[in-house]
């Protein structure tokens, strides 16, 4: 598993736009040293993400996983909010399920 700290890449603490999500996706792609099944994005220090940002992030990370020949297996560590019905609905539109682990991380993957 490769872990990437979002706060090291992005200066803002509230992430709003689809453009920011696409830029983040491009940065993550550039930071990977090679194919990886599981990516963990650590949102420590990030204080907010909008539905638009989250939607585009899933799109971007899904494209990355497909380019490596597998389904998306994403962990979101230190998410800036509780998992809500809105996040779950965004995941559903991408064919993804989002589960909250005991530690509070979000586990994002292909729906069974």
């Amino acid at each position: 598993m490769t872990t990437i700290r979002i706060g090291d890449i992005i200066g803002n603490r509230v992430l709003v736009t689809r453009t920011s999500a696409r830029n983040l996706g491009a940065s993550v792609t550039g930071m990977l040293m090679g194919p990886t099944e599981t990516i963990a994005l650590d949102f420590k220090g990030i204080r907010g993400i909008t539905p638009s940002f989250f939607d585009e992030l899933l799109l971007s990370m899904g494209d990355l996983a497909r380019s490596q020949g597998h389904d998306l297996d994403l962990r979101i560590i230190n998410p800036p909010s509780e998992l809500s019905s809105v996040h779950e609905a965004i995941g559903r539109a991408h064919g993804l399920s989002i589960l909250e682990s005991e530690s509070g991380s979000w586990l994002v993957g292909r729906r069974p």
Partner: protein
Amino acid sequence: MRIVARPQFIHPGHLKGFALPDPRGSRYDESNVEIDLRECEFIGPSAVLWCIVFSLLAKQRGNVCTLLVPENMGVCIYLKSLGMFRLLQEKGVEVDDLGVPEHDAARLIIPLTEFETEYDVEQAANDADLSLMSSGLGAANIHYVVTNAFSEFALNAVQHSESKIGSFGYLQYYESSNGPRFICAVADGGMGIRRSLERNPRLRSRVPYDWVAIEVALQERVSGTQEPTRGMGLFGVAEEVRKAQRQLVIQSGIGALHIQEDLRSQSRRTKLFPGTLAYASIPC
């Protein structure tokens, strides 16, 4: 043309007269506009943003445009501290605020701000977050809700409205009779929600009126774009305000929708808002 507001001017429905001309429309033929607030004893966020949007659209059509300020000094001070007079004066609207002192009456988190791009919105959202943190007002989880609502309103305005006058919004702490609240309000002078949704052929027959279009826009995955993953922003805000004594008001064209915990959702026909306004009231 003179448009006169009632003493309790909460939204455009409280303007005197039967109907308003649409300064965005081809049949608009006014040359002078006076917005008369002299009798106003109270002005709500929707009314503030209606004054700005209508004035600037009229100005953009080449009208001589004047705002007659309230005789009530407290209301005048409030509007001046909000930044309303300064913004209108800078855009060429005549506002005589002689003798109205500068005073921090509005308790602003984000002053009246103009947005043109997504970058402007992200910047304002981060400024709002810093300001909320340093204000000591409200809990961190409420800050998240407030910033999120503000961001989504502003994003919708810059992405979908095609407003020729830009988009405007502010974020404020307000001690109402129901307790302390955060107020966030954003408006534009663009095409409105119905026209935006009509761009999507699959939605065209579902939005015959402005008030229906607002209801449809709050549903999951509804967007004027035909991209299947879009249309979550307003849905998300609507889900968040259906709890904890929060309120959401959206006005677009001649439609309005009001959502609060006990009311759930109520749409109605109202007087024209020439664009779209979104307003959330969130207890601290």
